[in-house]
């Protein structure tokens, strides 16, 4: 299987109340994937800081967690990005911010910049917790895109490692693909048929991808295909929220220009309104 399992996982460390929860999540994942954990702190190195981390990660000693603390000076975005490049980190974990009072999460400005610029995969956590909350449902995108096959494979890989039973592959279909505009009964009938045909086509495309995945990964999994006609990048988040998914796996956006930020699309929608934990695969 041409999977690129995560060999090194990085997390930015800020000494905040969330520190323990964030570290626990990161450490747990490192243990699951058998990866090395890099703790990147932007600031001066000190023995005291390292001690704090050591105490927190003490619980994972029995799991033979391999970890390393990196201290970097400078502007946070730059520092974290350069550190992750130096250490060849292939999964960077970032925490999200909760909008006050409302149960809405979004990505803060620093994390957002990192997400846009990073060359590695990104995992955005909305509610890190010290106790492990079992992950039960993964939603993954099935866009028509060269990276999708890799993304779906990675989702199955994650599912296997995290012992997830249910995977939903959401095929977001641009509504412009339906060449019929609904005006009256006749065009509605034609549009409905066109939609059905596109859904079937998309489903068979995804099924083919699934066929390429080794049996061992598919076994005992409930796989669901859900075609959705809607805005790319937004509908999948909305769907993940409704279906109460625990993890959303997405392709990294192909390119990001100034206009993309002004008129948000794809990943940007997800960043302003995190529905759940999100894994963006590079």
């Amino acid at each position, binding site marked *: 299987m041409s999977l690129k399992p995560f060999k090194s996982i990085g997390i930015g460390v800020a000494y905040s109340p969330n520190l323990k929860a964030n570290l626990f999540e990161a450490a747990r994942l490192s243990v699951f994937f058998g990866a090395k954990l890099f703790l990147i702190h932007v600031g001066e190195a000190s023995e005291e800081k390292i001690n704090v981390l050591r105490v927190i990660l003490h619980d994972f000693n029995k799991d033979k967690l391999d970890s390393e603390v990196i201290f970097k000076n400078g502007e946070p975005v730059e520092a974290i990005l350069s550190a992750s490049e130096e250490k060849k980190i292939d999964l960077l974990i970032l925490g999200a911010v909760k909008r006050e*009072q409302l149960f809405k999460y979004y990505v803060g400005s620093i994390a957002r910049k990192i997400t846009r610029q990073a060359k590695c995969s990104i995992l955005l956590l909305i*509610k890190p*917790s010290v*106790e492990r*909350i*079992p992950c*039960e449902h993964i939603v993954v995108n099935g866009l028509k895109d060269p990276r999708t096959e890799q993304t779906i494979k990675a989702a199955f890989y994650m599912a296997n490692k995290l012992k997830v*039973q*249910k995977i939903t592959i959401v095929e977001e279909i641009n509504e412009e693909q339906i060449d019929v*505009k*609904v*005006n*009256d*009964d006749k*065009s*509605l*009938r034609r*549009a*409905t048929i066109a939609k059905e045909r596109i859904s079937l086509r998309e489903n068979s495309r995804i099924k083919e991808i699934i066929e390429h995945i080794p049996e061992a990964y598919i076994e*005992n999994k*409930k796989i*669901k295909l*859900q*075609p*959705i*006609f*809607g*805005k790319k990048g*937004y*509908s999948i988040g*909305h*769907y993940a*929220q*409704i279906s*109460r998914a625990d993890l959303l796996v997405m392709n990294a956006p192909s390119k990001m220009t100034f206009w993309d930020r002004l008129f948000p699309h794809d990943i940007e*929608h997800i960043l302003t*309104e995190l529905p759940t934990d999100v894994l963006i695969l590079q």
Partner: protein
Amino acid sequence: MSLKKNNLTEFFSTLPKNIFSGFVVSLIALPLGLGLAMASDAPPIAGIIAAVVGGIMVSILGGSHVTISGPGNGLVGVLLVAISTLGLESAYVAIVFSGVFLMLLGFFRMGTLADFFPSSAIQGMLAAIGLIILGKQFHIMLAHKIKREDTIDYLLEIPYTINDAIHYGNKGLIFAALAGVISLAIMLFYSKIRNKYLQLIPAPMWIVLLSIGFSYYFEMWLHEPNPISQKYMISGIPTIQTIIADIPIPNFSGIWSFSFFGSVLALTLISSIESLLSIKAVDKLDPERRRSNVNRDLKALGLATVGSGLLGGLNVVTVIARSSVNVNNGASNRSANFFHAVFLVLFIVLFSTQLTRIPLPALMAILVYTGYKLAAPTVITKIFSIGKEQLVIFFVTLIVTLKIGLITGIIAGVLATLIIHIVINKSVGLFLRNVLKPNVLMFKEEGAQNNFYVSVKHFCSFLNYYKLKEQLDAVPEDQDVIVDFSMCEFVDHTVMENMHSYQELFKKRGGHFDVVGLDMHDTDSEHPFALRRMLPVPKMIKKSLTRRQTNIEVLSEDYNYNYSPKKQKEISFLDDFLFFNTKHINHIYNELSHKDESARLFDIEFSEGEFIAKEVVRSTMLHIQLDKAIPEFTLDREGFLEKLSGFAGYKDIPIQDHEDFSNRFHLLGHNEAYIKRFFNDDLTHFFESNPYYHVESNGSSLLIFGKERIASLKEIKALFDYGKRLKDVII
């Protein structure tokens, strides 16, 4: 081929009915056309030209089925301004321009335009138009022609005119005023008199016939001139020859002025709104349940308006009153609209001299009645019952429209609505942040029901309703739709009203349309269309029931169950179900219970996890108390239960000789032997042949539920039925 032929034979077989219906409509269209044109200060024939051109063009090119097109009430106010500021010639050019813009709206698929206006603002605008018509024509109806600058002055002078009319000395004026008052009485009481011969002819035509008869009576029998003052007779109905000879030559000289384009804009806006609202309303009346092609109709109306303007006629719009008469008289396709135009031509060709015998006050009485209908006190009480804030929007639009103008009025209405929404939610951000987001998600749910599930996020108001509408319009009306507002913090009155009309539409066409997730929202009034706002802290007692709740209430009466929408904390009967082992039940609500409490169905709110990992889930469940003891078990579809940590330590129990059952279902329980005995052939067959539900037994009662969300009304019925039959199988 055979389909074509069928259509053709059907067309000819329904032709007599359509011709008849077209005839009846033309009886109303004739006096209305004359009256509307005169009310707009245009020559009376202009209204007939609009109806004829509209009827012919729209029936050939249009996309709707049983609508009637012609001059509209709504446009009177705008045309009046256009004609008085631009002069008649330039006004015709403005009409032609507005026709072109209307066509453009059709080509750019702007059939959704009317959805961008809050419904209370539209109501306010229509009421203002009603008052404009009523205010001006009331004086003519009482034979007291006056000219004032401001529309409000016309209204304020109504008492003086009445006073003057009582003290008339001139015989001509007395008769003129009498004609007006009698005509108004005919309009008012016509619908109250249920006589089938009387009802054969519509009220406006009675007025025409009676006044022409009156005039002939004086001429033929008494050999006296008509006692009604000549000043108050309809003037100048030209013969068909003069109409053709007098076709105005368009004069494009005065078009580069601000007031010209203001008029064009107003004409386009009002005619499109009036047409779109009418088409939507007529679609609901269509006995054959067809969907109109709105954009095509707009194009046809635009082209007809261009034609009408060039021939010296008014704007062509789709008109609701005449269309509804059309439907009631058995019209089944567009040919009725065509014949209505043909009959109008016949009337003008044959009776143009007779038409001059109609007194003006009689004609204006028809318009006064129309104006009154638009601004009737019942409109205001209805809006007040929806909510005080709607009344504010209504009056802001109404007053600004009367004081300044239609365009300013509707803009003021939109702004007022927006400000009120912001104040109610105490948040600008909610709207600013989310207005451009594609907040509607629709997908087909898996499973046998195959219903469409629509989830709406953030807020849903007139600002972004078109997104929801776009999705809903893509669903055939014989399907099942569930619209979930539980992630929506705010839903406004415009949306609620539209949801209601969707509900009616789906019901008529054999589908189901359910709105769920509004139980957590609060309202100010008990009206089902009241706007709803999500409460940060749910109140224990709410002021009004949601539509779903009232529907459940009706259901409970039908089935003779008790219904209580209140939240209940007494939920000990659910404690020993395994499902709730790892969950915390907050409360149950909307309980529907059998008289002896043996079966109860309820919405339930429970939470999984604690603190930051907490997830609140709402679902609908059925609890059945059994008379006899059965084994404890949990049954669900294969592959669903393993993930629930609460069931750890149990394993799947296979049932012998039921391969299919064991493959599809996951059966868990402690006492394996007992359970195996309990799942006999009947019971396994029952599960095999019915839809999936999660079924759980705690030894003495059953808990059944479907999805982890609130069920729609149809799903509630299905759940009840399933539970009842399951109970029968077990006992």
